[in-house]
């Protein structure tokens, strides 16, 4: 949550930070689709190398990248617990009444490589732009207004809800609240969550009113426009070239 709000990776001065967000969105879209549908090991190896490559170029803190990866991989770990035992296919090992199938291992492995490549590339390309630049970029890529507003307001209100949470949490802390395993604690937390939702709802209504007072009629007009530089074009072509090369590997 805090990570999302602070946009920790969005500040920096690598090539990727300076790259036009429109190019980034197109590249990540192409990359994700291709990695998701391909089953060639050699292409996936290429994808993984590409992913690691862009993370290096983005000059991100290794420790923070790994901590984000751990979150994703904790879900993937669950797949490793299930897939090898349940997927029908040739048994390579028998564990009591359970057989481990070769196909099961293969699929779990493919999913691991694919998700990690996509997440890494996502971190390197998308989190190096601020969310607002991404929103603008989506608008320039002609995504429907409604979807863009949904995305923008979701982000904006996560911040609002979070700041309401911090305020309420401070309010209970300064009155000597210590969480324990008892009814008082559960009750306090349920009040906190309830109050947080009511308050953020009220605040969002007030923000909306303020927008109405400034003539908002359901459409956002952009102030800043991106300037497409030569380096954006070159870097975009190089990355798309890598992705196509990855597919064409024998």
């Amino acid at each position, binding site marked *: 949550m805090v990570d999302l709000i602070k946009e920790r990776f969005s500040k920096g001065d690598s090539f990727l930070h300076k790259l036009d967000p429109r190019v980034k969105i197109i590249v990540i879209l192409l990359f994700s689709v291709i990695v998701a549908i391909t089953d060639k090991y050699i292409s996936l190896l290429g994808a993984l190398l590409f992913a690691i490559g862009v993370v290096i170029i983005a000059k991100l803190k290794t420790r923070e990248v790994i901590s984000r990866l751990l979150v994703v991989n904790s879900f993937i770990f669950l797949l490793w617990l299930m897939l090898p035992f349940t997927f029908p296919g040739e048994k390579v090992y028998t564990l009591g009444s359970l057989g481990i199938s070769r196909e099961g291992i293969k699929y779990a492995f493919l999913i691991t490589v694919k998700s990690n490549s996509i997440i890494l590339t996502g971190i390197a390309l998308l989190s190096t732009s*601020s*969310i*607002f630049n991404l929103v603008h970029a989506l608008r320039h890529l002609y995504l429907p207004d409604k979807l863009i507003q949904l995305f923008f307001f979701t982000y*904006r209100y996560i*911040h609002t809800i979070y700041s309401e949470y911090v305020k309420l949490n401070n309010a209970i802390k300064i009155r000597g609240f210590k969480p324990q395993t008892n009814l008082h604690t559960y009750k306090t937390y349920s009040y906190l969550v309830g109050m947080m939702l009511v308050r953020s709802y009220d*605040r969002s209504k*007030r*923000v909306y*009113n*303020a*927008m*109405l*007072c*400034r*003539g*908002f*009629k359901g459409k956002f*007009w952009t*102030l*800043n426009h991106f300037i497409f530089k030569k380096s954006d074009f070159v870097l975009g072509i190089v990355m798309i070239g890598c992705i196509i090369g990855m597919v064409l590997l024998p």
Partner: protein
Amino acid sequence: MKEKETIIKLVDLSFTYPSGRAYVFNKLNFNFFKGERIGLVGPNGSGKTTLFHLIMGLLLPTEGEIEIFRKERKIENDFVEVRERIGLVFQDPDDQLFSPTVAEDIAFGPLNLRKNRQETEKILKETLETLGLAGFEDRITYNLSYGEKRLVSLATVWAMQPEILLLDEPVIWLDEKTIEKIVQILNSNPHLSYIIISHDKNFLKKTTDYIYEMDNGKINKI
């Protein structure tokens, strides 16, 4: 002398909040003329903010008439024009600011008024200069200090060049220097009309010509 032009006319206005039992206003009458600079005082909960919200059409009256710019305003659509010509600055700047950067938040109003890019940028520059906020363009709104947020909130409405400003507690919790700045901004534009809700009598004395008091659902000049 030419008769003063009535801008806001409230006739026998009554209002009750859906959850409330008692009237906030009961048959309230009030006229506001072009060029007036008035202060509005009254105890907490006397309905000052509610009055502003009724003028802007954010709330609709239970009974009575609202006439603004010589036209009766009854439904949501009637207020679209009102909102383009009257600027309300909310009490809490966190309610007002929602865009990422100061520039975008200030440009939001003018862009809604369908100003083109050059005009908007000109307005943006002028507004920032008038309010002493030059250099704030790319600051992130939610990282501003409280005083800065108040000034930027004022700027977002100022940029729409409204004919009347409604300021809801514009100087509450501000330090003397920032208050002085707001006094100067208001006084350096003699053509401005506005209504200011405030508890700061000293501030009202410096910026307004009359003071009205609201109490028990009535409004009286004092």
